[in-house]
């Protein structure tokens, strides 16, 4: 069976648009609410990235940090995250889910046990922010055996030589970080420049899917439409924070935002 992540890319391609990927933090601001957010945005999002909150994140900007600290404060544990994924999959079996987090959480859980749990709960892919290539070779192989995509990250600082090696080892989806930034930074490079770098990566192996993330908002998403997929994270986390602050319902507000994002790439 084809990994639902690949199916999502095929579907989006048929509709002549990039896949829309969302990032929300598991347990933000509660287990139940984060599950409800996933359910409601899944109407418009093609792939759901679910953040595994960590309290010492070295690559996240303030928006995602706020979400992560909020989730941890409310008591989220790794097992709760698997439960959220499992409950979501009961509701929407074929919607792909990617867990995104830091390696220590996997290391403490045990790589094999973690991957088994991924299979049992229905996780389709993993992004591990601080497990770069070649350090991730072994783990990526283990993922492959479990039919889970290990998603390589690529950055503007990645040299061409290194890009080629990473793409050679990569699974069908990779993630291109648009600019030098933590998550949630202001887009400091023009969309044109980003697409130019993206095309350079695509040329290495056009069959492999590459999504672009970091700094994408309502305002910029339309200009990056030619990519295979686009990830929006901080803008969503920010909307959750804003809703909570104004005592509004994050579920409806985030849904509206994702719907709007989708309309910009149609």
């Amino acid at each position, binding site marked *: 069976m084809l990994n639902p992540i690949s199916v999502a890319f095929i579907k989006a391609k048929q509709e002549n648009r990039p896949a829309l990927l969302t990032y929300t933090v598991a347990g933000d601001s509660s287990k139940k609410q984060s599950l409800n957010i996933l359910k409601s945005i899944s109407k418009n999002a093609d792939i759901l990235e679910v953040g595994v909150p*960590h309290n010492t994140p*070295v690559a996240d900007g303030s928006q995602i940090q706020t979400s992560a600290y909020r989730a*941890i404060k409310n008591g989220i544990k790794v097992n709760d995250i698997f439960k959220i994924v499992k409950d979501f999959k009961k509701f929407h079996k074929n919607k792909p889910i990617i867990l995104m987090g830091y390696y220590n959480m996997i*290391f403490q*859980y045990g790589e094999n046990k973690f991957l088994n749990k991924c299979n049992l709960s229905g996780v389709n892919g993993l992004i591990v922010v601080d497990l770069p290539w070649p*350090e991730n070779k072994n783990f990526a192989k283990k993922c492959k055996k479990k039919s889970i995509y290990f998603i390589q990250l690529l950055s503007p*600082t990645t040299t061409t030589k*290194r890009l080629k090696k990473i793409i050679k080892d990569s699974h069908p989806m990779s993630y291109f970080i648009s600019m030098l*930034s933590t998550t949630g930074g202001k887009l400091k490079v023009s969309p044109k420049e980003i697409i130019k770098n993206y095309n350079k990566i695509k040329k290495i192996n056009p069959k492999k899917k590459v999504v672009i993330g970091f700094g994408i908002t309502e305002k910029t998403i339309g200009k990056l439409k030619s990519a295979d997929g686009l990830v929006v994270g901080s803008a969503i986390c920010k909307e959750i924070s804003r809703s909570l602050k104004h005592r509004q319902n994050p579920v409806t507000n985030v849904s509206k935002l994702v719907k709007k994002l989708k309309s910009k790439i149609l």
Partner: protein
Amino acid sequence: MKLKKGIPVIDQGNKLGFWGGKFGGNFVPETLKKPIEDLEVLFNKLKKDKKFIQERDRYFKNWIGVPTRFIKLENLTRHVGGAQIWSKVVSDANGGAHKVYNATVHCLLAKRSGKKVIIGDTGAGYAGKMLSMAAKKFGLKCKIFMGAKDIARQQPNVKAMKKNGAEVVPVYSGSQTLVDAVSECMRFWVANCDTTAMCIGSTVGPAVFVRICGWSTSQISRELKVQLIDEFGSIPKKLKLYNCVGGGSSSFGFWNEFMDYDKRQCEFIGVEAGGPAKSKKHAAPLTYGSKIGILHGAAQYVNQNSDGQIEETESISAGLDYPGISPLHCFLKDTKRARYTAASDEQALNAYKLVTKFEKLRPSLEPSHAFAVAIAESKKLSKDTIVIVNSCGDAYKDRGILEKRLGKKYVKSN
């Protein structure tokens, strides 16, 4: 796991930067792979370059003022009535602590790589103060990340940083201490690594930072070796080197040159921060058997919960208040070359009282932890045992805390 002889410990890591096959490494975001590799290439080249070594030594001598004193604490020795207690007064160094060696080397490297800005983390404020000093000296712009709690408790050093023209960025996340400052500093580097050099203030972080820092602070033991031979004619038969351990840079530098000696001749004792006697929280991952985890890009023993969240620490000393520990020390612990123990806040304060009562020496709260253990153990040791404590920082920065905990008479006005 084995420690090799004849090879510097900083160079005993494997290809991926792991000591003993499992400590250290480079658990970093992809964006940092290139700048880290560039720094590795530069450092590996320069540390073999005679001209660079000469340049380093010139700054160490003329600007830092090496060698720092090696003195006998006669009164304290008499009072304790056991081993001879000596001190390597590293706080003599320009700025008042060992952090100046690493800061100077990082600025030299930054200059060579053409960077105009240098950033760093700090806990006690010494790493930040020294980096701001060195940056000023070498004409670099400087930005220091510091936890808000530490900014409040280490004001003298904050003032010094600002006076040197550095921007001090308060960090409000997490426990608002060193661990959060390092995270924020790394995050800033992720976003600015094309124009900015990063200095990590201890032997922690991705492997190359561990190596650069250990290489820099090794100046301490290079000097001490000469001083021991001057004083005793040879390396004493019973030598014990006590040092506080936060990230582990002063202790590693204090021990490095003696690594190949048998530990029965030359024993290393690392003293971690046990925290308040009444609190369960501590900053002593080696003493209390914390599990291996990943923190700030390196695998190490680290205080964490079963899920892998890093745990909050507690210590009276901002410089030791860190949940992790250098991969070098994890390696020295597991190869049994060094022994690690902890002193509580109260024990450190008592040691401070005792040292300042008997000697003209004012160790900051960090080395006071080492003094606590050294004094306690010296009582039971023979008179021909040479105990040396690295007094790696001056207490001026701690005057607020000392006054509050011990009263005004323990604080001098300078």
